[in-house]
């Protein structure tokens, strides 16, 4: 079958000769992929920043598809069902799944106790092949996969498997209260969704910081927020203080993660030399821009290696930090409702529709921010554009 074949940093192949996935456990299903996305966090893999990313792995943790085979224990799905598959692989039985922490399942990733299981995201998250393929094995098929409502556009559905719930949870973890000033660092797909979601929690003001004007223009229109290019600010932290009565923002959201620009030393340490788990510039700004007693919400992905952050300021300011991989399964019913009611319009962020055969171009376009790319979707040959 045709699938992504990772060959090393900055090298991706659309390989036509990879084996079809098989049922390996009674709770598995095999899904024929209809849409998959390239996520901003896939770029961390593509750039070689995530340890234990093995050559030959198929990436892709945002996908929808049609069930073509089920294991002997699967009861909730049947062949022919069209499903959205959350990026978290979750057993539904462990103490963490019982608390609806589906992103922290303890029975899906033997390689790490810190990270849960994620499709196509290195052996640090379980060593699963992902959905940038024609077919994919889906473990615990009775737990995560959710049947796509008939009225829902597949382009909306695929974005509900990660981007939308992750952005929403970023705002939710911020504990936003009515009238709060919320600053979102990063105008990528997650930052865009976080900004949009902040209003749903009653934010009084939403500010997005990034360096790419085309993305800032997009989020300004899409999320009706204020936008600023940090390259035009001498110091973003001072700027945020100026914007917030000198006190700082009530809530700051790091929607950037390991590949933040804006500080040469941090970029060198975290992105080039890999001496820390990514460049922590956005997180620095978030911690230093939030007000005393405020909340920093982190959904940007960092590597497992230690990373330098101003922890002294966290203490001195009494900041609460909340962070997690989104619990997609928990949030899906609400996200579906918001799409149905027109409150969220996920597919509007899709800028590129790329045949799976041309996935290497897709990664390069997204990675290099060419052609005003915001969100690329990959279409397998049989799915039809």
């Amino acid at each position, binding site marked *: 079958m045709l699938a992504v074949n990772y060959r090393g940093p900055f090298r991706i192949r659309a390989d036509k000769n990879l084996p079809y996935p098989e049922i390996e456990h009674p709770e598995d299903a095999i899904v024929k992929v209809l849409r998959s996305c390239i996520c901003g966090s896939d770029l961390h893999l593509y750039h070689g920043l995530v340890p234990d990313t093995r050559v030959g792995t198929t990436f892709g943790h945002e996908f929808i598809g049609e069930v073509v085979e089920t294991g002997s224990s699967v009861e909730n799905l049947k062949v022919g069902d069209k499903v959205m598959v959350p990026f978290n692989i979750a057993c539904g039985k*462990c103490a963490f799944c019982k608390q609806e922490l589906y992103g922290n399942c303890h029975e899906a990733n033997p390689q790490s106790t810190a990270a849960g299981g994620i499709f196509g995201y290195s052996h640090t998250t379980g060593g699963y092949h992902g959905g940038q393929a024609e077919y994919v094995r889906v473990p615990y098929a009775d737990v995560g996969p959710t049947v796509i409502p008939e009225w829902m556009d597949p382009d909306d559905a695929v974005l509900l498997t990660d981007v939308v719930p992750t952005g929403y949870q970023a705002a939710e973890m911020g504990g936003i209260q009515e009238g709060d000033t919320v600053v979102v660092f990063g105008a990528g797909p997650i930052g865009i969704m976080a900004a949009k979601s902040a209003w749903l929690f009653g934010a009084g003001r939403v500010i997005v910081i990034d360096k790419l004007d085309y993305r800032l223009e997009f989020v300004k229109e899409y999320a009706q927020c204020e936008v600023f290019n940090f390259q035009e600010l001498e110091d973003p932290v001072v700027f945020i203080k100026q914007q917030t009565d000198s006190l700082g923002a009530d809530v700051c959201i790091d929607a950037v993660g390991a590949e933040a620009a804006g500080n040469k030393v941090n970029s060198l340490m975290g992105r080039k030399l890999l001496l820390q788990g990514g460049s922590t510039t956005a997180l620095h700004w978030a911690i230093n821009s939030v007000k005393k007693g405020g909340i920093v919400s982190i959904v940007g992905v960092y590597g497992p290696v230690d990373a330098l952050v101003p922890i002294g300021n966290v203490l001195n300011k009494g900041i609460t930090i909340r962070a997690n991989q989104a619990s997609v399964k928990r949030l899906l019913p609400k996200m579906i409702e918001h799409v149905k009611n027109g409150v969220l319009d996920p597919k509007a962020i899709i800028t590129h529709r790329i045949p799976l055969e041309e996935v290497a171009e897709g990664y390069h376009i997204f990675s290099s921010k060419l052609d005003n790319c915001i969100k690329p979707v990959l279409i397998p040959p049989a799915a039809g554009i």
Partner: protein
Amino acid sequence: MTTDETSPEDFKNNRGGDHSHIKGWGIDIDPKNDPTYPLKKRTDEEIKGYSWERSEQQAIDIEVLHSVERPNITAVFGTAAPPRGLSGMIRRHAFKKSESSLGRWVPLILADRIDMVEGVLDDLKQGYIPNFFEERGLKSEWKYNRKNFIVKTATVAAVASAAVLLLSRKSKK
């Protein structure tokens, strides 16, 4: 550019007040969601420790490295790319260390780079010559960022030519 120099009147917060133009504004307001007073929802499960009923164990018929911080292999696991060659040896060594140790993560990054070379050798063994231009998606660089493509290509060509010249001079001596 906005500078750091500030005066008292620079500090203000123009919150605005009417958000009626924003569809869905406030529909998920939850005054109880205030994590500055963290109250974790505990369940009975939490105090029972690692005692839940696990799913059937997936057959372990490939080499699966697992964290030393857990007693077992999870009920399900991925079967992509088991450890192989020199990179696999390094990975096995790395997995003897805990997740809090640099001795785990740094060797894994080294293993990844070696794995890349092993991947190229594997391709060649199978009679496949990797197309680096295609794999790096450089057609799109030519299409959307031509100036940069030309500059980078010229730079690489110049550096390569200089290296060849230098090496050939040395070998003549």
